[in-house]
Every structure is written in C-alpha cells, then in structure tokens.
C-alpha cells in the first residue's frame, strides 16, 4: 500500500542477515495467522476479525486485537524469549503498548509519517483520533525511530518534547542497519 511494506521487508532481511531472529505480524485479507518462513523471516499474516467497517479507526482497532492474540501466542511459544517490539506507524500502536504493559516488553515506535501531514492539517474527528493514537505511541514508546532530523523536529512541534528518546536513522545511510541495531540495544536497556 505504501513504502512501509518495502521498508519492513528490507529491515527484516537485513536483521536476519545479522543473525537476529525476526517475527513479522502483518495483515492479509483471509490470512490465518500461520507462521511462514520467508528467507529466514517468520511471517504471520492475519485477517480482520470483523469484516465490515465504517472507517479505518474501527478497522485498525479490531485488527489490533487479533495482532494482540497472535503476538501473545508467539510470546508464549517463545517462553518470553523476545527482546522487543518494533511497531511501525500509528496503526500498530495499540497492540504494541498493550503487549509492552502486559509482558514488560520494550517498545520501539518507528514513525514513517504523521497524521497532521498526511491529512493536510485536517481536524476532523477521525484525524483527531488517529493523532491521539499517534500521541499515545510517542508517550508510551521506550524509544522512537525516525528517518530524518526534520521528522524529529515535527514530532517535537506536534507531540511535545520527547527528543531524548528519538533516534534519527536515515534509511539511505550505508551504516543504516548497524544504527537500527544500536537503537534496538538502547530500547532494550530502557
């Protein structure tokens, strides 16, 4: 749908190449949640438990309950041997923060874009709700990863001063995956 899919795929491949065990939980219409191994990455695709929705908010929050179910099963299977959650965008914030609280897991929030920019500063109730979820993620995350200093400044302007827990890691940098791993280490230490 957007560049997030490519980013997460590249990130997962690069992490596996560095001997990091990666499990991706993602959406697919009709997905049964079974674990498939793709080039060393464990991928579980899951469908929405409610088929009909009236907006992206209800769609997302119902889907996140399934993410929580599947992620909990993965955690129980791994007997707790999971180091952190890397949640991409506001759509995954609710699941990430609940898993963090329940399992005492470090939570990294990777922000690709912000609702204010996507909606061109719209203030409709839907935009406000998405903004609030985004804000919840910014507040609850142990660390935040963004791709540019500009995004870091925008988070500060929109969500407040959380700069001490924000790492800027450019996806174009030759040291990119090493920098991501450094952020992972910092997230685990928090």
């Amino acid at each position, binding site marked *: 749908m957007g560049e997030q899919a490519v980013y997460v795929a590249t990130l997962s491949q690069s992490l596996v190449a560095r001997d990091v065990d990666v499990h991706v939980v993602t959406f697919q219409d009709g997905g049964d949640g079974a674990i498939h191994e793709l080039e060393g990455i464990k991928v579980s695709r899951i469908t929405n438990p409610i088929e009909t929705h009236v907006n992206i908010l209800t769609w997302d929050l119902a889907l996140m309950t399934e993410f929580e*179910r599947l992620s909990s099963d993965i955690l129980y299977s791994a007997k707790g041997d*999971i180091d952190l959650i890397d949640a991409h965008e506001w759509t995954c914030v*609710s699941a990430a923060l609940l898993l963090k609280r329940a399992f005492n897991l470090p939570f990294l929030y990777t922000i690709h874009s912000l609702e204010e920019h996507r909606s061109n500063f719209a203030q409709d109730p*839907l935009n406000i709700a998405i903004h*609030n979820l985004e804000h919840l993620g910014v507040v609850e995350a142990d660390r935040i990863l963004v791709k540019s200093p500009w995004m870091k400044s925008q988070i500060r302007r929109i969500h407040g001063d959380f700069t001490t827990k924000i790492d800027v890691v450019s996806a174009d940098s030759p040291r990119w995956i090493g920098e991501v791993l450094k952020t992972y280490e910092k997230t685990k230490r928090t």
Partner: protein
Amino acid sequence: MKKQSEPNLSCVPERFKVLMLSWEFPPRVIGGIAAHVHDLSIAMNKLGIDVTVVTCDFPGAKSYEDVDGVHVHRVDSYKFPTPNFASWVFMMNLNMQRYAIELVAEEVRRGQVILIHCHDWLVANAAISLKHIFRMPLLATIHSTEYGRRGGIHSDYQRLIHQAEAWLTKEAWRVICCSNYMASQVNTIFNLPRTKIDIIPNAVNATNFAPVPPSHLRTRFAEDDEKLVLYVGRLVYEKGVSVLIDSVSRVLQRVNAKFVIVGDGYMKDRLIDQAQRLGISHKVCFTGFLNDQDVKGLYRVADVCVVPSLYEPFGIVALEAMASQTPVVASGVGGLSEIIEHDETGVSVYPSDPESLARGILRLLEDDGYSSRLRRNGFLKVVNRYDWERVAGETGDVCNRVFTEYEKASWKPWKV
C-alpha cells in the same frame, strides 16, 4: 537476553476472581446494563465471589470505589470527538484495555485466575484482548443483538456491530442469554452452538419497589377520576410506544384514563405529534426522564403498566411493575412471552396491534378482581423466580463450570 516476568500458575488458586467489563455502571445509566451489572456484581459478591468492575467514568463519580464489596474502577471513556458511536466504542475500549491490563497483570502475577465477564459488544475488544494476552477465560452476556434491535441488518454500520457481536460469542468460553428467545436468536444469527449458551434471566430486588410513594405523586400526573396507565422505557422504535398511542382512543371510549409515558428517546417528538394528530394529547403525558424514586412511585400508583415492545430480549420493566404489584399488559414477544403467563401473571397481547393492546388494558381497568389476582400472582413470580440471589447463584455456577474446564485445559498463561 532479557526475560519477561513469568507468572507462576503451578498452584491453581482455590478461588477465581471475576472481572466484569461494562460500558455503564451507576451513576452512569444509559440502558439496562448498568442496573444489571450493579445488582449482579453485588449479589455475586454476597455469595463469596470476588468481583471487580471496570467501567466508563462519569462526572462526579469516583475513579475507584467499593460498592457493597464490589471493586469498581471507572476509566477515561475517551472524551474527544469521534466520527460515530462505533468509533467511540473502539477508542473507549482501548482506554479500558490499558487500565484493565494492569489490574489483571497484578492478579496473574499472584497466580490468580481471572474470569473476564463481558457485557455486550460494547466492551468486546477489551475483553477479547485481555483473554488472549493473559490466556484467561472469557464469559459473555449478550443482553440484546443489533439484528433484533434493528429488525435485521440494513447497513454497513449495523453489520459492523453485528459482526462484533458474533466475534464476541465465538471468542467466549460460554455465553449467557437472558431468555430462551435470546438464546434461540443468538444460536441462529451467529451460528453459535446451543450447547455453548446458558439461559439465566434478569432479576429485580422486590424490596426496592415496596415503599409506598407520597400521596401527591399520583396527582402530579393524573386526576382523581382518571385511571393511570403507565409506560416506562426508552422512546425508540422497538419499544412499540406508537402502538400504545394508537390504542389510547379505544381505551378512552370506555374508561377515563391518563397515559403516562416515562422516558426519552429519538422518537419523542414523533410520538408527541402522533398524539396531537389523534386529538388525545390532553390524555397522554410525556414526562421525559424521571428520577428513580419517581419511577418506582409511579409503578406503585399505576393501575396498569404497559410493555408494548416489538422486540424485547427480556423485559425488565415488566418485572419491575410486577415487583411493585402493578398488573402488566405486555406484547407477546421475545423474553416478555416467557415472563408473562397470560391470565396468570399478566395479560399477553398481540404485538403491533393497538386493538389487542386496548382490549388487554381495558380488561384490567374494568375488572378489579382479575386485576388483583394478576397483581398477586405477578409479585409472587418475581419473588420466587427473578430474585438476584438465585440469578447470582446461577451465574456463579456458570463461572464455576468455566473455571473447572479452564483448569483442565492446557491453554494457560505460561507453560509451567
């Protein structure tokens, strides 16, 4: 590698605890769930079951309080604007999850088993999430269905709610319905096996309806020479109030009466127009929302209480009237047809039929002996069958069954 905290469930606790999730709890009263959860939780607590309720906040209400032994936590219900009610429900659920997760985590760390008891789809997201994250059993009470409330599913918005209800029944270990009618509907529309459903009726505390109201209460609503015909409930389509308005002139042809309509709802203006069009507005009093004391008083002074519903999963108003020793005329739909035994504990009439309704009302207004017998029988039925202690015991039995099955299952928080 850092390990997460691992709850130890090697020793199964002797007693489980119940965590009830409900979007309303007094003083926040929107529909019938608030009173149900309030009375049920207190009655279960009296039977020795530890009950905690997590619900939405309300202006002036404490964020935590002990209500007759029940731990009540009120969480931020999400006050920002949302595109529609369903969106608000999902955002409210997230707040409920965030709060409840801390409560459950603490209990699970102590090795306690928490039975999550979810009331309706309005808290389904939070309940299902807690179930899976902590691997705790989930019990659901379905108070009504979107299909029943709307007379079918006619829009995507209704389909969303319908599918959320279906999801909840699928995820629940067992499902409680308040009547055979509801059990049958849940079985049919959600394809839920009947063997997964328990039927436990609602209840009323009859002593709450016993006090005699002040003498001036009746004169606020009716003249001395007028019989008082009472309706209590929301002014919405499925309650059938327009059928009652259509029956008024038929009753007035033989008996001088005042029809007192207590409650509010989106149909209020339409019903007022209907009464004006029929030229009976001087005989119909729309009181709007009344306080609890006035409603209970009106039950006591009314000559007849009418429940003209087109859809009714249970029919708590009929029970409240019976507890007040007021004779009831009710349409023979849903749970009402299980409460009202025609000519014994009330008068059952055809739904959507003003003629039948008028006949039922007149039968009671014109025959004091018949009316007295029904008052007495109705009251005895409430005391003997629809008592909170009995209903709490039956609910406790379902909880025990779930707990016993859960103990035997391998599905647990951490493999120990």
